[in-house]
């Protein structure tokens, strides 16, 4: 069964305290692993796509990595404005090339 699991559900960090969010996936025929940021009352906003194990992408304080079973979103020296829910999604081969989403990690960065 295709499944995406994110951990932890919630994370509170002090400003400047680095950490990582985990996304484990079991999807047959992965077309890509996607990270999104979602602010309250808004739609998900695209951050990164990773296509193959070993690939890394960076943007400001965020860095995404991918293995054959997991993806990590590393947050370095976070700021309060990084507070949001972070979603990962695995896109699979097949009819519709569907996205399978995890339930997200709610990140709060305390000044």
């Amino acid at each position, binding site marked *: 069964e295709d499944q*995406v699991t994110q951990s932890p559900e919630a994370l509170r960090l002090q400003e400047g305290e680095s950490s990582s969010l985990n996304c484990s996936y079991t999807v047959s025929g992965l*077309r*890509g692993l*996607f990270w*999104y940021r979602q602010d309250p*009352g*808004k*739609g*998900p*906003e*695209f951050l990164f*796509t990773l*296509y193959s194990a070993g690939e890394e992408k960076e943007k400001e304080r965020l860095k995404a990595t991918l293995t054959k079973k997991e993806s990590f979103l590393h947050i370095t020296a976070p700021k309060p404005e990084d507070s949001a829910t972070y*979603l990962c*999604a695995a*896109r699979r*081969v097949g*009819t*519709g*090339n*569907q*996205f399978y*989403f*995890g*339930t*997200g990690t709610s990140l709060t960065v305390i000044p």
Partner: protein
Amino acid sequence: NAGVTQTPKFRILKIGQSMTLQCAQDMNHNYMYWYRQDPGMGLKLIYYSVGAGITDKGEVPNGYNVSRSTTEDFPLRLELAAPSQTSVYFCASTQDRYTEAFFGQGTRLTVV
């Protein structure tokens, strides 16, 4: 660029009423999706379309219908609304089989 536009943003329905959630994209994307998002449950796929005239069911299609008469528009129809359909609904589109999905701002629906 407008991207993906959803209307309305908020709606309250009475049990048994019907309504259509509108979704339009101006990026000429072939793939379009409807999701619902419930607290702690993540985004669940309701219906999707790979092009004009082609639609198919996702994970949770019961109580919903869609149509795709043009590339731009992908409306979601709720017939006989039920309290279980209280949720936030998101429409999304992608250019092809590999690229990211762009989301609308969502429609918050309450059925009372």
